[in-house]
């Protein structure tokens, strides 16, 4: 052991003569990170990415990104003698000829799904707790960009084997590109090297998938992590936690062991799942042939909401002279994803403008304390959920014996009706929780102990909540909505940009108008005083009746 420590010490001192290694270690080795299960979601995403790079490199050793047609002569009997692309044949070889090849392929695909899922849940955690607020807006933008890149990256990887299922997906993408007004046809011909499917797409997609996208991702992940390090991690409110400190455990040794160990846990679990659960059995689908398709074709789940949108859209098309605008494809396939992308990336700035909040925030919001934001998040989940369901409407229709036409109509109407309802319900729910917090702070929690007074009245004993709980509730900031702007200043000159300011004040009222005020220290003291008075009186009554006074009464 001492040999390892000595040698490491020597190596560091050699390096130190060339770079300030010790200064770097000194600044970061004992860096404090707060502990919470929800902080692991981003870690799962990071580790999945590392697993993807590792397994991806192995796959490139055997995969041949070529659409050249060959006749299969491998060991998978049902496909022997069938015409297929080299890409598909080499995927079969990885699955059937290479020892451990199938395992690596399945780890890669599972890790991609976990990557996507972890990113989405991580983003919702960031969203609901307001972790994107100043000074972390840029990290939100980077994270949201990575989410979009991974969406494309996942779709690219899924398409590379050139099997029947993914080939249909590529055909759909080609159709969406064709629907872009003015440039669509040209774009499609440039992407595919001519008409669909052409001969170039897989090899072009391959470079995109193994070089360009991972390179960009790697750079963005680097910046993402550096910013997390520099800003120091946010923390949940609690006793001993303030906006200017960070409470937790040191990087070395606790998080080296915990986070390092967690990488192995994620990798190990992914590997075990890859051993036990088949994913993307391309040998069952057959090679891509443009005139074949299987019923119940589904994209990987993370693309499902886009497909659901495409399915729900009414068949609108406009012909102007000799030109066609395919609203039925362009709106759900290009415009809506574009709008969603912008809304996602810009949310921190939109909220910042409405609230006018320019302070630094390192204590996370409890979702209930920001009812509008929480409501928006819940409405987005509802919106997304409906589209995912519609993306699988054929399978759902068959499984549950429903009419597919009715399912599509449910989506067409539900997409406008359900999210606002969910927003409203979540908003009310949050306000209710705020009221309960206030109650608990002023009158304690309901202990469940019921006492009968000598004159016959039943009372439930309320007990004060712990200091830790008080610290959590009191961390809520009371924020007043922005006042409505005056129409003119004192000299009667019209306020510049009045409309924008009015909109902002109105939105600010929406954000904070229904806020339940956190009790002031005076109110808390008053409530405690009041409680004592009442109980003194009751205690006196109990004593005069010769009864035992419960010891836990305040």
């Amino acid at each position, binding site marked *: 052991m001492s040999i390892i420590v000595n040698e490491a010490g020597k190596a560091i001192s050699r390096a130190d003569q060339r770079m300030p290694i010790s200064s770097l270690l000194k600044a970061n080795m004992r860096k404090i990170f707060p502990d919470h299960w929800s902080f692991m979601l981003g870690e799962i995403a990071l580790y999945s990415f590392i697993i993807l790079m590792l397994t991806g490199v192995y796959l490139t050793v055997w995969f041949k990104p070529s659409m050249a047609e060959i006749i299969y002569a491998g060991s998978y009997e049902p496909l022997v003698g069938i015409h297929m692309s080299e890409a598909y044949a080499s995927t079969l070889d990885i699955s059937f000829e290479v*020892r451990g090849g199938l395992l690596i392929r399945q780890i890669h695909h599972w890790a991609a799904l976990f990557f996507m899922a972890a990113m989405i849940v991580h983003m919702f955690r960031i969203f609901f707790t307001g972790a994107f607020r100043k000074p972390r807006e840029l990290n939100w933008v980077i994270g949201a960009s990575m989410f979009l890149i991974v969406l494309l990256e996942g779709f690219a990887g899924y398409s590379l084997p050139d099997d029947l299922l993914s080939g249909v997906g590529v055909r759909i993408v080609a159709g969406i590109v064709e629907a872009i007004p003015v440039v669509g046809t040209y774009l499609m011909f*440039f992407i595919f090297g001519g008409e669909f499917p052409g001969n170039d797409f897989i090899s072009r997609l391959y470079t995109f998938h193994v070089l360009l996208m991972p390179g960009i991702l790697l750079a963005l992940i680097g910046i993402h992590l550096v910013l997390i390090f520099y800003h*120091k991690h946010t923390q949940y409110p609690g*006793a001993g936690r303030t906006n200017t400190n960070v409470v937790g455990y040191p990087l070395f040794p606790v998080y080296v062991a915990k986070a390092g160990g967690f990488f192995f*846990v994620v990798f190990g679990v992914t590997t075990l799942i890859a051993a036990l659960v088949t994913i993307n059995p391309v040998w069952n689908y057959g090679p891509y042939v443009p005139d074949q398709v*299987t019923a119940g074709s589904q994209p990987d789940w993370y693309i499902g909401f886009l497909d659901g949108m495409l399915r729900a*859209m009414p068949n609108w098309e406009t012909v102007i002279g000799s030109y066609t605008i395919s609203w039925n494809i362009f709106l759900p396939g290009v415009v809506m994803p574009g709008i969603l992308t912008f809304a996602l990336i810009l949310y921190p700035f939109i909220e910042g403008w409405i609230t006018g909040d320019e302070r630094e925030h390192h204590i996370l919001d409890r979702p209930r304390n920001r009812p509008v934001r929480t409501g928006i998040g819940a409405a987005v989940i509802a919106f997304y959920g409906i589209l995912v369901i519609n993306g699988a409407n054929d399978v759902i229709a068959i499984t549950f014996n429903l009419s597919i036409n009715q399912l599509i109509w449910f989506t067409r109407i539900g997409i406008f009706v359900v999210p606002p309802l969910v927003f409203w319900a979540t908003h009310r729910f949050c306000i209710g929780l705020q009221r309960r917090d206030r109650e608990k702070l002023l009158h304690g929690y309901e202990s469940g102990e019921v006492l009968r007074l000598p004159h016959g009245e039943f009372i439930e004993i309320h007990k004060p909540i712990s200091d*830790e709980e008080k610290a959590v509730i009191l961390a809520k900031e009371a924020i007043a909505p922005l006042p409505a702007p005056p129409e003119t200043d004192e000299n009667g000159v019209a306020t510049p940009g009045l409309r924008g300011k009015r909109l902002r004040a109105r939105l600010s009222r929406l954000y904070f108008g229904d806020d339940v005020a956190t009790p002031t220290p005076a109110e808390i003291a008053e409530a405690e005083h009041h409680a004592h008075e009442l109980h003194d009186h009751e205690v006196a009554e109990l004593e005069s009746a010769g009864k035992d006074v419960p010891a836990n009464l305040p």
Partner: protein
Amino acid sequence: MSDSQGKDLATVEHGEAPLYPLPPHRPRTTDTDPRAARRAQRQVATQFALSAVLTVGFFVAYWVVPVDQTVELGPFGVWSLSNLLLGLTLGGAILLIGTGAIHWAKKLMSDEEIVDERHPLGSPEEDRAAAKEMFDTGLAESGFAERKIVRRSLIGALLLFPLPFIAFLRDMGPMPGTSLRNTIWKKGTRIVVDVSGQPLRPEDLQVGTLVSASPEGLDEIQEEEGTQNARAKASIILVRMSPDEIRSDQSPEGETWAYEGILAYSKICTHVGCPIALYQRRTHHLLCPCHQSTFDLADSGNVVFGPAARRMPQLPITVDDEGYLVAQSDFTQPVGPSFWERG
């Protein structure tokens, strides 16, 4: 500077005291009981040792189990034994390192919470001033501001030089031209069954059947071109219904595109191009499996439901001298998804 809440940002201090202090640290049994600590140590070491054993197990499986050996696992079906064993040993070996390390951290490493102060994130005022001064000095030394002609010619050159890199992209693909408007169907091209390549006579098709078909010679063209492009457009479906069930088809005045109740429609969906062959015999509806566009083949292939905007193009057919089904001509409109120039 103050924010909308009226708090003066300059007075938001570092090191503010929390309302309630950090709760005192509660020692774990491993902190107080040496036996518990030793037990935890054994548990950690056991996990690491098991991991090593499983790695050895991985190599045994790698060398002993052939890659194509399958195993029947009752209700779970047939499995690749190699994948199963390699995955279980490797996955277990990796997982145990992780669980061991986390157990170690949770039981044996200090779990006393430490408080660290946050540092101000921005640059100090004097650094900002110094940086601005340096920038101004540099700018003045470069003459970028005064020497207009240098500045403007540089900006012009910088704006132009990326254009060649856009030009390079031009040869990614050919111009569309009219290629999306034609398929390989011609007058007299025989219709053959998709898989077998057999030419079809009307009597081969019974009323109520739907057959996927393609033009004769498609395989040769595909071989020659080295792509599946021709197939992606030329695929058709043939459907036969009794002539009185056909309410309308796309034949113009004075022409007959159907032959004795046999209709030929493109197989490529007009929405985003999925091939369609889900046919409901009773209603003559054709349903796309991708996005559920529904077409009525007894009524000119019109859209009855779903996101597709255009009816399925019909291929005019007849029979040749030998009695085989042939095309009268190419499709008279583009097949597949709409595009800007389609009109």
